[in-house]
């Protein structure tokens, strides 16, 4: 089955981390996986520095390498032609989209995005971030993003995350999802906290254990 998922959301909400983890999960399930960095907003904190490592793990990664870019952050981010045609790749495809409304605008430039029958757009939410800390703010933010098919509860406080922080996020994100009429696709739990969680969180959302790769992504 072909899986096509795009991760959108607020800046620093955890899009790249979840996109990487989802790609590797699909790879473990024997999918042929293409991971595409479509962050044209941000010169930093993208998955670009991890490109080689992720390729070594077996992913087909479409992204700039930092050394290929010229005037990083000053000259604007260019789309590679492989990015525009990303949805034509064989197998499953995970898209890591730049942040906010302008980031989500990238769908206009991706061939076939409007008509792809398998495409799902998931918004990543961390309620420890004040701009998306309460239901009302999450709902209004998600509505600005355009098409969103589901929410991902990625609530955490970095190294200080506790199970309570994650569960509180699950509660708020679930309330927002109910109001938006879309599902919570899963709650992301860092592997350090895995032992505290069963298959679902207290709201009944599936729990997905993720490994944090982005702390290694220096520009």
């Amino acid at each position, binding site marked *: 089955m072909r899986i096509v998922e795009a991760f959108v959301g607020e800046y*620093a909400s955890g899009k790249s981390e979840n996109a990487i983890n989802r790609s590797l999960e699909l790879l473990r399930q024997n999918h042929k996986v293409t991971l595409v960095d479509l962050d044209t907003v941000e010169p930093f904190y993208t998955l670009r520095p991890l490109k080689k490592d992720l390729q070594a793990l077996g992913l087909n990664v479409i992204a700039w390498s930092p050394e290929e870019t010229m005037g990083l*952050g000053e000259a604007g981010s260019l789309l590679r032609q492989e990015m525009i045609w990303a949805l034509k790749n064989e197998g499953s495809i995970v898209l890591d989209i730049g942040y906010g409304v302008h980031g989500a605008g990238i769908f206009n430039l991706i061939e076939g995005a409007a008509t792809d029958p398998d495409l799902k757009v998931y918004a990543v939410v*961390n309620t*420890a*971030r*004040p701009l998306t*800390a309460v239901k009302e703010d999450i709902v209004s933010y998600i509505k600005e993003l355009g098409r969103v098919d589901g929410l991902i509860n990625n609530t955490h406080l970095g190294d*200080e995350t506790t199970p309570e922080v994650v569960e509180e996020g699950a509660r708020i994100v679930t309330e927002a999802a109910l109001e938006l009429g879309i599902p919570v696709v899963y709650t992301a739990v860092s592997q350090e906290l895995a032992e505290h969680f069963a298959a679902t969180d207290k709201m009944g959302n599936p729990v997905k254990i993720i490994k944090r790769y982005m702390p290694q992504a220096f520009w």
Partner: protein
Amino acid sequence: MNEKPVIGSRRVFMTGNEVCAWAALAAGADIMYGYPITPQTDIMQYWTRLAPKYGRKFLQTEDEISAGFATVGGVIAGKRAFSATTGPGNTLFQEPMSMAEMMRIPTVVLLPQRGGPSTATVIYSQQEVTMTTFGGNGEGFRVVYSTAGHQDLYDYTIKAFNTAWKYRFPTFVLGDGYQAKMREPLTIYDPAERGIEMVKTEPLVGLPGTPGVDRPVQHLRNTYNTEEELYDVVMEIARDYEKAAPEIIEWQEFDTEGEMDILILAHGVVSRAAQGALPLLKDAGIRAGHFRPITLRPMPEEQMRRAAAKARRILVVESAYGQLLKLVKEALYGMDKPIDTLLRPGAGVTAEEIVQLIQEGR
């Protein structure tokens, strides 16, 4: 309209630029003037997202010279006004900020340093130390806080407004692109609930009453006629600055209680590498301490000298080619201490690199 942006206190997860916008909101800043430049732009973007919710304002100017002068103007009008810039933008800010120095205008500018010279990189450096502490034509009558992470960015952005308005010197919060973009948890709080009273702002012109009759004439000048006239004014500012300095200086010391083989001097985010190096050096049998100036201007000179006196050698570590080093040499003038350096202009420094350098030097 929401009243308070931050109620009570809570633990949150943010980028450094986002922290700056929240801190300015919590400090009761009325208006930000700015012109975009990476890695500062997110401060503006977060401010423009948040400010309307709390009745605050924003003006994007045509360039950094205008942003600096507009900030001066906003402050003169009695607003708790601020701006943010970096790199070549900071260069352009020096003209309006030296005007603020001359006229004693309490401006606040946030500076997530990028690489230099010129446009260089959008990423990171500590290369704006000389410019921020002593830039412009003048004497460096300004206050510069150097932050080492998100809690600092929050605390010192709030404090910068009070320092500026209390002492009437332009005040800068010197961060860097790493802090701007990195994410870590911090506690945001309503300053009032921490017992922090925001210094009241007031218009510097257009005061009530007849000048010369009901009140002294308020004549803000950055232009003087004769050498003697200027000399008197600058010396008065100098006296005010020297008097305020002991109240303004801030620093941190780590493991400096006893005799040290080496004292590591670092500021800003590089201080975190120095702090990380200490336990590694201890394991290696090296008695190391770390002194971190938080204010780079005024510099906590006496405190640095006291710490240095207990060490056999000094190691200055910075992401610049000797800008902190220059300030350290001035502070330690006359002391007979060998100074080693780890100077990495525009590049980060890790705890391991510091440890390696010290071990090789043994």
